[in-house]
């Protein structure tokens, strides 16, 4: 699963280089938003979706300190 997610992250990074909209403003989305700007706005939403996948399927298992390392007041917070 982690390899698939790593592949998705790399693919999204490559999608940031949208050479296909480099020299054109058309179509103007909603009549005023150049396609290059609209694409990158959608790209931000895509990044959020990728983060949902990462959090759901690849949350770092070692991101909690061992219980013995926590101070007593940390417990139950």
């Amino acid at each position: 699963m982690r390899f698939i997610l790593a592949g998705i992250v790399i693919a999204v990074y490559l999608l940031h280089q949208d050479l296909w909209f480099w020299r054109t403003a058309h179509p103007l989305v909603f009549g005023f938003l150049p396609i290059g700007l609209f694409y990158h706005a959608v790209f931000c939403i895509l990044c959020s979706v990728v983060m949902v996948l990462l959090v759901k399927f690849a949350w770092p298992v070692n991101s909690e300190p061992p219980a013995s390392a926590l101070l007593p007041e940390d417990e139950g917070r």
Partner: protein
Amino acid sequence: MIPAFFVFTYLAAVLYVGIFAFRRSSRGQSAEDYFLANRSLGTAVFLFSLFGTNMTAFTILGSSGHAFSNGIVTFGLMASASALIIPLSLFLIGTRLWMLGKQFGFMTPVQFFRDRWECGHIGTVIFAVQAALLVPYIIIGVMGGGSTLSAISGGWVPYWVGGAVVALVVMGYVFFGGMRGTAWVNTLQTILFLSFGAAALAIIAGGMGGFRQAAQEMLGSSATAPLLTRERISPWFFLSYTFIPLSTIAFPHINIFCLTARRVQQFKPTVILYPICLLAIWLPSVLLGVMANRATAVPSIAAKLEARNTLAAHSSALPPEERTRLRQAAAGDDVIVLLLNHYAPVWLAGLLGAGIMAAVMASDSQILALSTMFTEDVFAFYGGKERFGPVAQVHTGRIFVLGLTALAYLIALRAPASIFELAVQYAFSGFSSLFPLLVAALFWKDSTKWGALASTLWTVFAVVAVAVFQYAIPVPQSGSPTTVWTLFGVPALSRTPGGTAVFGLMPVVPMVLISSLLMVTGSLLTRKPSRQTMSRYFPGIQDRVHSRG
């Protein structure tokens, strides 16, 4: 005057938040409480304040100003690349930093480096470099505060007074409230700006008669049509800009902030919502900056456009002083404020101005981070805490806040560079170059202090070299780069209108790559930390022989 009244009311409110946080803190406040809010921030405050910490004058004024001059490319360069890189680095690096901070009690990155690599003075070198790189970032806040207050008040508040007011307010709530006050103020600031960003867009669009007509008019002019595409920059430059967001997690105020979460689970909503928050703030800023090119009904913006046209038409014939004057006159750092003043009702312009001011004042976290670093990495490390006690340590931190803010203000009064240039060329590229240190310390068990030192010294050299190069080689007047060194017929080093290009890439790319290379080779050639230290950070390794003669 009325917008300025709203802004001053807002400034008074955030100052009160800092004092309120001070009253909430315990008597005889500990360093951990003052500098890290006792590692107890809740989910919403952690998300909004972490995001707010990253929003500066650069985000709002710099981005709209950059978009005014360069067009929609600003969003792809600075926002959408960050929408992937920043949450990803919080996910991978921020969570591990939090865990180690919780486990071993670190309060600064240098404390972590010293323990991880068993070093003392090398840690001090890293501290000095981080501090030197962070100061320009703090100056941005003061500069942005000065120009924003001046613009919102229609020039009634001069730049130097505006900068002083902002510096005093920020100094006040950081001084009193520490991390808790700073986090609460940042939360308020983020909510304020997220609320008003869309409102500003709608009101200005309405005032301009809608953006459809503006977009069509821009497309109809050869001078402005390229602003709606990216044809003026190369894809390689665009690609190299994705190295800039690596700086975010390497900024001390961000990785210190990662230590303030109560639980690691609080990173989850932060990494998921971070790209959406970026979108909500950057899209209006960039769009307004671009559309300002058709806001000729605003006299100040019309004057900027005229200055730009004069520069484009007669640049080579103008004396250098006149070129400099025109370049400053054409700068767009205040276009968003000018648009608000012209198109929004007075009371709403005041509220929106307060929202902009909220983003401008994000230098608070950097000031607090430098104070934390100074007291922990220098004062405490060199015996001050043992000699004078923990209470004196907090007092030292507060005195440092006063001194640093005063220094930043004095520099802001004299600094000639634009907000954007100052931020990107020095602080951002430098911290991106320090990114390999963080990755190596966290994930590569064989990394050593000598690799870290090599990487840090390289960063210093590269930042100074870029600064000297840009000082020595004047900005090309024709608009096309001045090639200084060619290798096999390819321009290897060029002075561009925006800065420096190395093989057509931003300097940040070779800076990060060479920094990584030095980290690896320096570590492979030198003695590893003791097995005991390595097993604390990498519990899985117990039996390998680490030491090399």
